């Protein structure tokens, strides 16, 4: 009887720890959401959660303009986060330092023609 009680206590405690840890990982470490789970295979779902607004806007400009490559202004090129994310997010459209299409922040001034613009980003054709 004592053995059985010990066993029940053991399983209860360990299961409780597992449960707490699962909730901890889900809600505090990886931002789990049931909404994401239900739409897990939907195209372009939760893009806004995966990257920042800047990257998302830049990606939309690139897609809208139907170009095959792009370059970044000096400021954006030196922004490690932006560069990394736009490269992976926009693939198969590639970052090419020789491209005539340049992405820049909307407050920057480039001596090129503005092809498309959004709230935060401008796409120039040089």
């Amino acid at each position, binding site marked *: 009887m004592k053995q059985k009680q010990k066993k029940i206590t053991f399983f209860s405690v360990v299961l409780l720890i*597992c449960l707490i840890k699962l909730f901890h990982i*889900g809600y505090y470490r*990886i931002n789990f959401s049931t909404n994401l*789970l239900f739409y897990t295979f939907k195209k372009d779902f939760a893009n806004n959660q995966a990257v920042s607004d800047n990257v998302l806007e830049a990606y939309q400009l690139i897609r809208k303009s139907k170009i095959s490559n792009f370059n970044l202004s000096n400021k954006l090129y030196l922004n490690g986060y932006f560069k990394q994310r736009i490269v992976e997010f926009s693939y198969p459209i590639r970052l090419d330092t020789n491209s005539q299409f340049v992405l820049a922040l909307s407050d920057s001034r480039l001596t090129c023609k503005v092809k498309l613009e959004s709230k935060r980003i401008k796409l120039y054709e040089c």
Partner: protein
Amino acid sequence: MNVKNSVEPDWNLIFLSFLISFCIFLNYFFWSVNFNQIIKSINFFTILFFLFYFFIGKKFKNYNYLRLFIISLLVLSLGSVTVDWDARSIWGFHAKRIFLDDNLYAGFDKYMPELMNAYPLLPASLSATLAQIIGHWNEIYPKSTNILVLLPALFVQCSFLKNNKSILLWLMFILLFTGRALVSGLVDGLVAMYFVTNCLIIYNLFFEENSIYGRNLQEINKNKNILFFLGIFCGIILTLLKNEGLVIVMLLLLSAFLFKIYLKKKIRKKEIIFGILIFIPVFIWKFLATYNGIYAEYLGTGIVEPVIDLNSFDRIILRLSEINTHKLLFKHLLLNEKFIIALLIFLFSIYKSFEKNKLIYSFVITNALIYYIVLYIVYLSTPHDFYWHVTSSSTRVMPSIVMILIFFSVSTFMKKKE
């Protein structure tokens, strides 16, 4: 035979693990020779079928905790966006490239060399297969295939644990120490889990004499062969996960052969073949990468001050002489809270059951220690900023040592209690 000290794993689970590991390898192989999409899809559905069989098969009715664990990981992975830096920029990006270019060797075009084009791509190739089945890419589901890659390792570990109590305890430790890494799209959790599994299999193949392989000769031969081939596939998977995996397999085999020599045991031909077969796929990958001019960053010269233009050896020498280097490494590799907990559990377990498990403890300690030294050397030779590299990656690499210490503590201690 000393029945009390005998090891009888669940051969049904081992066999299932072998089948899944084989399919995971096949998926990589199909990509590497550019097979038809339909064949890759059939192979993927076969893996799902095996998983489904595990959930409904009567043979596995005692693994309810394990079933719940796998479901939980899948739910977490499918219900979260990929945001981790490496998960996105290395693994996710390469999977996307394989999927969109329909080519495992897409990275050989040298586009974005800073995104580790030389890394082997086994987990990314499985994500790419799933993306082909779904038909489009998004930022959520591709990483969930890491849970499928995890299955063989997890099944082997649980099949060697004696009862539900030890399985549940082990699953708890996995959640506590690598849970997040397993669901976030990072490969480091898989490396840690396969380190444990390969150590377990190599120990059993090379040293364990009390294993019960079956009741009759036919069953014994069958199960011995299954463990042998499972060991090969798990080894191949580990070498193709990440460069660390290749180093770990080398260490495991090297220490196994050295132990054999020390114990004056004969090294069998089968063991040498085992060692050779494991390395073939990764050597082919490395050869093709090198042939296409894709090199590991570590082989190049330093890219930041004060190690700019210095080669690996010179970087080590320079940093060895700096006291702050050792202080930082000490802080991140020794005062890591997970490592300290694992070490305490391991020491307790040794204290309780060293006599009966001398060899396995020695094997585990040797491998953990050598891997620790390798990590130390790798950090000293980094071409990147030393502080940045240590602080940003030490929490990802330490779980490999943590998990190996904890698994063998749980398995040997619970065996002793029985």
